[in-house]
């Protein structure tokens, strides 16, 4: 009973979807204000989801059975990640050993679900989107995992989120050391790609490949993909807060830090053009991986 409650309601689905949809509204509103527009009302993302639930679901002629299954797969995996993360933040005793590693795996499930769904849609533009998403996933996972490993080394090999939090509460946030700072910047840029925000949104480029991976989706599956994106927008910044800014995780500080990370992501999104997939890969593998390895080395020497 308690497990179901925490999966579907409090740190799990309802809570993280609400936070994510509100964060999505903050994104749209700040973008609008930066472009000197007025922007949508606060309930706009909720309205979009409700509307999509009322629309017709079209099954393309060439679609395979995984077309309709994959959105739910992605959402279920991601909600599990949101639940584990929320348990570690709000109920410290409920964590388990090595939940950090489980979390890294679970957070890449939405991208895999998107790839499976797009490649079974039978549309050439969708398969272009799927191949780009796959290359991007290979690109950003390496520096992201290296920066997570930096945190693990800094906390002397602990892979349990609540212990990482306790250690930061005693010794100060990880971001305020040299290696932690570098790893934080690397993880922030990887978050941009994980969320599919603008310099790295080539998998869903609206103007270029007409929605890319999502091109054939309509109605409820599209709503589920939008919800997955919303939950991801709540989960990944919280994950970064736990790893790098975990000194004080009271509700007020959590809110301020969340808004701060979100604002940085939105500002990067609004001041950069979309890069090509080869430029993105070069950026992740040649630049960010080098920085992540430097951070790793510094962490080994205790800096």
């Amino acid at each position, binding site marked *: 009973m308690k497990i179901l409650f925490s999966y579907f309601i409090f740190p799990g689905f309802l809570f993280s979807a609400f936070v994510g949809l509100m964060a999505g509204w903050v994104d749209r509103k700040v973008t609008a204000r930066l472009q000197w527009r007025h922007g*949508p009302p606060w309930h*706009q993302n909720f*309205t979009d989801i409700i*509307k999509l*639930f*009322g629309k017709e679901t*079209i099954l393309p002629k060439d679609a395979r059975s995984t077309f309709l299954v994959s959105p739910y797969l992605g959402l279920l995996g991601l909600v599990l990640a949101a639940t584990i993360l929320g348990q570690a933040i709000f109920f410290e005793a409920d964590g388990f050993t090595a939940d950090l590693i489980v979390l890294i795996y679970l957070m890449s499930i939405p991208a895999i679900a998107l790839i499976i769904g797009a490649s079974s849609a039978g549309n050439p533009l969708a398969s272009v989107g799927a191949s780009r998403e796959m290359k991007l996933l290979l690109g950003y996972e390496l520096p992201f995992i290296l920066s997570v490993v930096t945190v693990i080394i800094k906390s002397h090999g602990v892979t349990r989120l609540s212990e990482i939090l306790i250690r930061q509460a005693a010794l100060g946030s990880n971001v305020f050391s040299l290696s932690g700072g570098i790893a934080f910047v690397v993880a922030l840029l990887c978050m941009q790609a994980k969320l599919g925000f603008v310099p790295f949104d080539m998998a869903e480029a609206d103007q270029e490949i007409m*929605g890319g991976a999502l091109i054939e989706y*309509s109605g409820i599956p599209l709503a589920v993909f939008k919800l997955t994106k919303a939950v991801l927008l709540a989960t990944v910044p919280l994950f970064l807060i736990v790893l790098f800014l975990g000194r004080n995780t009271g509700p007020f500080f959590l809110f301020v830090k969340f808004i701060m990370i979100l604002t940085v992501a939105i500002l990067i999104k609004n001041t950069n053009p979309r890069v090509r997939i080869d430029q993105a890969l070069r950026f992740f593998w040649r630049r960010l991986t080098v920085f992540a390895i430097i951070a790793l080395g510094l962490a080994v020497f205790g800096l």
Partner: protein
Amino acid sequence: MDIRLKALTRSIWAFHVSAGSCNNCDIEILDCFTPRFDVERFGIQLIGSVRHADALVITGAMNRKSVPRMKKIYEQAPKPCVVVAVGQCALSRHMFRYSYNCDEPLDKILPVDVYIPGCPPKPEAMIAGIMKLVDKVRSHK
């Protein structure tokens, strides 16, 4: 009132179809999304794929090449989906009325819900037209 219908009128995703227009109406449609008019206030967005569309915004006189494609695009859109005819050409074929290439006006091909006249129509006229449709849908229950 049905909550889905209410949500539909609050978040219209528009798909822009050009059926051989001279580009003036298209530019005016894009004007609606600029800071001065900003229809994102009403939840209206321009989207790339017709599978996400709630409204087909059609400009231009229907020529023989574009009519079958127009029908195909309308069939691909998920219902409920409205059709908005923008500009004099889409309404009545305007100066191409006696052309060999433009057989029939748009409302003989697709069920049109809103007509927005003008050559090209002002962005204010388009917003007023869309809002009239929203009011009509809401009062109709």
